[in-house]
């Protein structure tokens, strides 16, 4: 299947946004955003806090209404036909909104009703979701007795109880420790391999690089770039980055040198990363360590902002 963005709304687009604007008073949270999620792919929305990712997510379920632009989700035009779209969508919110006084199983059962699973299929749907969350043995535990990782697994399984065609994940692994994060990545990757369309917002570069077929980089409500992660890296940051370590005065020299050579550079803590080119900055070879350029480099180059 081709993943090239087509300018027209096609039947194979799970999500199609064109020129979408959302304002809150004087603040333009989303500013003429175009976004294309082909069916069966995983698209990452990458950006720092405040880039407009969560607002975009909320517009896709009509929990925020766009001021301008066209939104189509699973072939339905929003906000008018949002309810049909939502019936086939699973939503994992950034902030946990499980019913904490209910058990794991009760939480899933309630959503099997809200998602209109026929009565006789509900039991099986709940069992399947318990399996996804790997919480079958904790089915009778109250949610407030679960660990953070278990709660997040339950939150994701709750969104999958009705086997949606499209899953919206808003910062699915924020605030979790690395091991739990990797568990969730495996879960999300599994969904993708089943052909579920996924839109995922994140500010973890590694998450986007591992899971997403394409990423859209957002900054201040706009999409500043989009494409396949490694292609974006090659196009904007080149293959190689050269990290020069040294005292601040030296780092400034390196930056000036890079500027003269027309190579982009950026500060990363105690070092300067010089991008592009196939050799370290002349005169600083001994203080330089090569590494592969990454999406974070692209992000900083394009937006001038630090992510995360």
């Amino acid at each position: 299947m081709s993943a090239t963005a087509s300018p027209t709304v096609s039947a194979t687009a799970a999500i199609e946004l064109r020129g979408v604007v959302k304002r809150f008073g004087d603040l333009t949270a989303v500013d003429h955003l175009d976004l294309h999620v082909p069916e069966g792919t995983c698209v990452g929305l990458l950006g720092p806090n405040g880039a407009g990712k969560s607002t975009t997510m909320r517009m896709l379920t009509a929990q925020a209404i766009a001021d301008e632009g066209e939104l189509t989700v699973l072939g339905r035009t929003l906000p008018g036909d949002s309810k049909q779209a939502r019936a086939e969508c699973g939503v994992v919110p950034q902030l946990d909104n499980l019913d904490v006084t209910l058990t794991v199983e009760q939480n899933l059962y309630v959503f099997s009703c809200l998602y209109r699973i026929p009565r006789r299929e509900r039991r099986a749907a709940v069992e399947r979701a318990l399996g996804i969350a790997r919480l079958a043995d904790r089915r009778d535990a109250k949610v407030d007795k679960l660990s953070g990782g278990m709660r997040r697994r339950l939150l994701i399984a709750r969104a999958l109880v009705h086997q949606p065609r499209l899953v919206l994940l808003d910062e699915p692994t924020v605030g979790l420790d690395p091991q739990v994060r990797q568990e969730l990545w495996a879960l999300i990757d599994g969904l993708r391999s089943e052909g579920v369309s996924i839109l995922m917002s994140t500010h973890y570069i590694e998450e986007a690089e591992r899971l997403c077929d394409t990423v859209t980089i957002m900054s201040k409500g706009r999409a500043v770039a989009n494409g396949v992660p490694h292609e974006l890296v090659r196009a904007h940051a080149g293959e190689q980055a050269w990290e020069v370590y040294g005292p601040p005065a030296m780092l400034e020299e390196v930056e000036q040198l890079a500027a003269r050579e027309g190579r982009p550079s950026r500060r990363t803590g105690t070092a300067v990363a010089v991008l592009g080119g196939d050799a370290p900055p002349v005169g600083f070879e001994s203080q330089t360590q090569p590494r592969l350029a990454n999406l974070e480099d692209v992000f900083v180059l394009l937006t001038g902002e630090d992510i995360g």
Partner: protein
Amino acid sequence: MTTETTETPARIGRLEGSALNGVLVREFINYSSFWRSSAFSSIVEPVIYLLAFGFGLGALVQDVGSFSYLEFVATGTVGMAVLYSSAFPAMFGTFVKYKFQRTYDAILAAPVDSEEVVTAEALWLGARTGIYGCAPVIVAMFFGLDPSWGMFALPVICFIGGLGWALFGIMVSATLDSIDNFSYVMSGILTPLMLTGGTFFPIEQLPEWARAAAQLNPLYHCVELIRSAVFGWEGMSDLGHAGFLLVWAFVLWRIAIRQMTKRLVD
């Protein structure tokens, strides 16, 4: 890859049974974990009022109009139970659900609209009130209140009254920004309406302007209807009371939906 053309989407309507059902199931399951405390406050509190007023004031007051004081207070307490078991849980419960637990955010991500959330929540609280409201009358029967056929209408009357007050509570909750401000509504609106609704003393005692104002007090119409159900229907005036309660509930239904939609949808 062959692409199936998506079938023309049938527009899903408003106020769908399956959406209401989903919200009601959630309420019902939640209720199963806290029904004891809820039933306790909604049933025991009016009963305490009934006993306190019945024995305390009843020793001084023999009759109120054509009623014995027990009869008057027992039916008045039903009215109070209706108010307390619908408006208060609606105010606090709704606020907690949208603000602290973000429950409504989760529900609105499913195929449920804010109109359906408000409607289902009000129906649920109304139904609960229909049952809680009967408690004072049942207790009063042990103290000599005569049973009557009309008492079987009490759940329906309490349901309708409870629906209106629940919607009032949802509207307040969706309108005010802080739970602290609820005090203004409770002390400034609900307590005065409760006391001047003909619950513990007849409104005929009140100055003329207050009596006129009572005609606009939904609790007054609710209490009048309760008394008619228990002691005998009064034809047109009962229809008037019922009509007032239904119109009031309908108007609040629309306002509560509008306020809640404003609150939940950016």
